[in-house]
């Protein structure tokens, strides 16, 4: 059974230069108690996808079609009030920027009790839960931390507070949007350990968004590779990283400098830029940068699925 299922989701933004199609028929599932990674470079639509799931698209954005099924309900059809009841208690989010994620003029304790407003607990009980959660993310002196303001914490500590807030809701699904990108590498490891530990204790599913393939490979059960607003490849982590079927995924893994142990004369790259999303190519979105391009790539590529491993490529059958 899936916690979250996204079907043919398309999202576009009205801009001065015409409609920008940010997501095009995005489909994937997040099974219960699993961690699904979304990987892609800038402009691939990761952030738009999260906003769409949370119902927080900007004013000029709209969902053109598709479904976001969560606990049997289609989130795209829900009103603002029903979405609010899901956001927070059922789906919690940890955002990329720990510096800006907390309101600068309220104490940490107040922000952590405010989000429990639906719990019906007493004020003291809410504060106790907040302190308990801070203890679980290994915040030194959690009670004192509650009465401090966000700017008094370092970036790593702020991210722990953000994680504590998200986990305190005991959600069914945790969305982690590049939670370690703004942190130093040696803090990253501890933060990921913390997320994993809490995810195990609470038993939630996790959607982990990152551009860092090493982290995704290490952490996730399944992987969704996005390019220019489309899912180009999807499968288990082993399938995608060991036997990538889409040329983009193949090149992306090759490019990761962590992969090459020794010193290479020439590092692999992917020449070219992502296409203009206001005028999506009618065929394969990656064709313009693909070294295996042939005539058929001008046609929309089919979803080629083998053993649950999907690649959206005309030549995927060969791999």
């Amino acid at each position, binding site marked *: 059974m899936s916690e979250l299922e996204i079907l043919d989701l398309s999202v576009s933004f009205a801009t001065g230069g015409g409609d920008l199609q940010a997501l095009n028929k995005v489909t994937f599932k997040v099974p219960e108690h699993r961690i699904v990674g979304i990987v892609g470079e800038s402009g691939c639509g990761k952030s738009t996808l999260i906003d769409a799931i949370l119902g927080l698209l900007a004013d000029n954005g709209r969902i053109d079609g598709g479904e976001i099924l969560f606990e049997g309900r289609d989130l795209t059809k829900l009103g603002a009030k029903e979405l609010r009841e899901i956001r927070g208690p059922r789906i919690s989010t940890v955002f990329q920027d720990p510096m800006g994620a907390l309101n600068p003029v309220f104490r940490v304790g107040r922000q952590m009790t405010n989000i429990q407003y639906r719990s019906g607990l007493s004020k003291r009980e809410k504060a106790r839960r907040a302190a308990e959660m801070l203890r679980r993310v290994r915040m030194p002196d959690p009670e004192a931390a509650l009465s401090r303001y966000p700017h008094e914490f*370092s970036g790593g500590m702020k991210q722990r507070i953000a994680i504590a807030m998200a986990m305190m809701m005991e959600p069914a699904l945790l969305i982690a949007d590049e939670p370690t990108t703004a942190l130093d*590498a*040696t803090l*990253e490891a501890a933060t990921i350990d913390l997320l994993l530990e809490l995810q195990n204790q609470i038993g939630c599913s996790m959607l982990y968004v990152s551009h860092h393939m090493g982290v995704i490979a*290490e952490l996730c059960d399944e992987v969704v590779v996005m390019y220019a607003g489309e899912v180009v490849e999807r499968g288990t982590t082993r399938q995608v990283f060991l036997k990538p079927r889409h040329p983009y995924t193949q090149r992306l893994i090759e490019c990761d400098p*962590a992969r090459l142990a020794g010193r290479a004369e020439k590092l692999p*790259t992917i020449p070219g830029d992502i296409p203009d999303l206001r005028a999506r190519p009618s065929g394969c979105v990656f064709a313009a940068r693909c070294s295996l391009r042939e005539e058929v790539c001008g046609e929309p590529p089919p979803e080629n699925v083998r053993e649950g491993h999907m690649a959206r490529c005309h030549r995927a059958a060969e791999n």
Partner: protein
Amino acid sequence: MSAILEVRDLEVAFRVGPLVRRRSLLAVAGVSFDVRPGETFALVGESGSGKTTLARAVNRLQRVSAGSVNFEGRRIDTMSRGRIRPMRQRMAMMFQDPVGSLSPRMRVGDAVTEPFRIHKVEASLKEETERLLSLVGLPADFANRYPHQLSGGQARRVGVARAIALRPKLIIADEPTAGLDVSVQGEVLNLLNDLRSRLGLAMIIITHNLSVVSHVADRMAVMYLGRFVETGPTEEIFRAPKHPYTAALLSANPEPDPDKKSARISLPAEVPSLLARPAGCEFHTRCPWARDRCAKAAPRSEGRNRLVACHFPLAPNASPPEKETVQ
């Protein structure tokens, strides 16, 4: 061959805090290294390690409080402002933000030829623009663009073109791949490698990303709280790191391979403040291998080609001791 740059016991101090309680902190706390012609030297460290301050001090953008910097055999840290300016033709610097290090209202063509105007070098600026842009693989019509019309990778190329404009002997590149997508990072590193071999440049590359280092640097130094904790040939350090911090940094950079579930060395606690440096070995508060002695005595950097500031250098493939789990 003699070194093009010699840095000895360099210190940079900042004064912080309000007037009444002004305190001094050492952002760079005594480092020494050489860079030889044609060589790439990497400075690796995380935020607050002092690597950028060190680079700025070498370039004299930052006042040096102690120690010396010799460039091409001449001591430059005590040189007057007027004397230092001609030196900057031969020592170029590239900054972190590819777009932000270009003057926002200056076209690309003017930006890459700015060094010629500053140093009043006689040249056909139009020809030089074309030559430089083609050297870094940009079409000539980019000369008319403004920085905000460039992608990160393109802006980085413009920065490289500007840096090599006057054929410097040494380039200092601060985080040359920061903010770039993985597929573009390679382009920039290839370009730097290529230029180095073609123009015979020496380079200092400053980065927090170890995987960048392994592909471009001959030698490297790992910085923590303003000091070098480990220095040596890149290959050797990658093969067998001896300082626990180096080992932790290396392990924090997992390969995209699900079967190699890497043994990450998870460092506890926060980075100490430069105003309250830990006693003894400054890394002991976060070191998984720390023993009693580490909190008491500061280790000395030992070795000739390979320097390690640790009481108990690691054996190859060491894994951290099991912690007693307190629940």
